């Protein structure tokens, strides 16, 4: 098992305020990890630091064994941002947006190849938007736009997917379709870190959950579903890959933790 993500004592400071504090997490290849926490607990901040968008104030992050500051193999990484503004000043088609996902594998000045077109088409099929590729994104519904962002990331055929609430506003049927696609990818060896508020159709995929509260990691263990805290952990059909870790002073993952 190779280490895909290695976060050591990571801290992120935004606008002078410590937002993520002293987080230690490792994710091995093939794992599917859910990152949970209340609004404002620092999930997006941690995830952005993980993909190199925010600098660390303390600690370090390695992807595929390489220090993030020296990381070059961007085609191995796929990021889905939270609520990205994909409809900007000038109209763009679904295919143009999804095509941006291929740039981690394309060299400048080289025109699009056949394999790029195939990857774009397959990514759109995975989110069930193949018939919309020439539509203007701003005419799609919010959930469909979220699926376009997912397709953009899938088009790059990444080995590590970092998804920030990919299900926001997406109907259950499409969530299930995305979960199925991700299931296929993990079966082929992909690693997934996904920020969620409830596991939903992803429940069967998730092997481990992390929980942030006020920027600190307060739980790292078998799956828990915030939507069904009573049946915490589907231990019966998921073998935990890492022993649960409960920080001192934290009795349970949901001891009134909504900051």
């Amino acid at each position, binding site marked *: 098992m190779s280490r895909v993500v290695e976060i050591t004592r990571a801290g992120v400071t935004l606008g002078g305020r410590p937002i993520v504090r002293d987080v230690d997490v490792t994710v091995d290849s093939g794992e599917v990890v859910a990152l949970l926490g209340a609004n404002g607990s620092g999930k997006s901040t941690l995830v952005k630091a993980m993909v190199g*968008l925010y600098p660390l104030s303390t600690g370090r992050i390695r992807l595929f064994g390489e220090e993030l500051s020296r990381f070059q193999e961007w085609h191995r990484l796929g990021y889905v941002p939270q609520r990205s503004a994909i409809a900007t000043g000038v109209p763009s088609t679904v295919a143009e947006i999804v095509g941006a996902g291929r740039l981690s594998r394309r060299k*400048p000045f080289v025109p699009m190849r056949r394999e790029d077109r195939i990857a774009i088409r397959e990514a759109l099929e995975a989110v069930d938007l193949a018939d919309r590729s020439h539509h203007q994104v701003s005419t799609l519904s919010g959930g469909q736009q979220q699926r376009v962002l997912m397709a953009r990331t899938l088009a790059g055929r990444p080995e590590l997917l970092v998804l920030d609430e990919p299900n926001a506003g997406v109907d259950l049927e499409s969530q299930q379709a995305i979960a199925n696609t991700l299931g296929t990818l993990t079966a082929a060896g992909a690693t997934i870190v996904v920020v969620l508020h409830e596991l939903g159709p992803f429940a069967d995929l998730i092997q481990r959950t992390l929980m942030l509260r006020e920027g600190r990691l307060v739980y790292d263990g078998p799956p828990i579903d915030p939507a069904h805290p009573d049946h915490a952990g589907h231990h019966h059909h998921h073998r935990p890959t890492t022993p649960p870790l409960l920080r001192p002073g934290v009795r349970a993952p949901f001891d009134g933790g909504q900051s």
Partner: protein
Amino acid sequence: MDILLTPFMIRALIAAAVTGLSAPAVGTFLVQRRLSLMGDGIGHVCVTGVALGLLTGTSPTFMAVVVAIIGALLIELIRSTGRATGDVALALLFYGGIAGGLLLVSLAGNGVLALQGYLFGSIVTISTSAMVASVGLAAVVLVATFTLLPQLFSVANDEDYARTTGLSARFYNVLISVLAAVTVSVAMRTVGLLLVSALMIIPVATAQQFSRGFKVTMLGAMAAGTLASLTGVTLSAFADVPPGATIVLVALAGFALTFPLGLVVQRRRRAQMPFPVQDGFETHEHDTVDEPHRHEHGPGCGHPAVEHGDHIDYIHGGHRHAAHGGHYDEH
């Protein structure tokens, strides 16, 4: 017609054509990044560059390119450090550029008149060497925008995401700024510094009424820009009006004339968006239309036809009718 074949008119038409091609190409990226006024900011900074050229006795065009690039880099620097928002950064440059230019020109002992050709354009007096320089610079701009189109698009569209695909957002942002600066210097002779930005933005506004995609918008804007430039120069030759202002007015007229058409196209496009197919729709018991349906729906039957899954719904009287066997269903 002969006037169009005189050497100075041929030079003017060539310079106008390359300006009309390159200004909207770069302008598309500025609109995408919501920096529509950047062209104006650079234009104002160019005033200082031109004045510097007049003061030192070097080429005003060359100094304009240099100072414009420095100004564009400054805008990018201020914007990216987050010290001021993009539009505040632009405003600072507006004022600094104009004030600096006026001061330098008076130091040079030239009146503001010396600036006039640059502020308002002077395409009819353009020299052969200036025209060749314009063509060369415009070619550089066009080659750069087209060969790096996917990268520039990705960074302009979603900078954070672009960075996670390994693109240097800073490099591409700076590149667009530099290309904008070069474009302004090219367009300076054609439409003048005060109106440069109009030729970068108006054709984009015209094109995007009809387009669904970024590349198509860009190509459409280039066509609209070239048409406006050539028409403007030609009109000014016959009517003895200033070419720069005429070009911009023609571009604006193009926008105004196509606006109603644009509304119709957009409305029709929205009306033709397929109806979403809801889960389990097919299994519903069909709602047969009661009324005896004498009308036969079909292509060109006069009712709006909208795709719905594997069939077509025809809209009339607020109903969606779909053919089913020998009758119509209400969908």
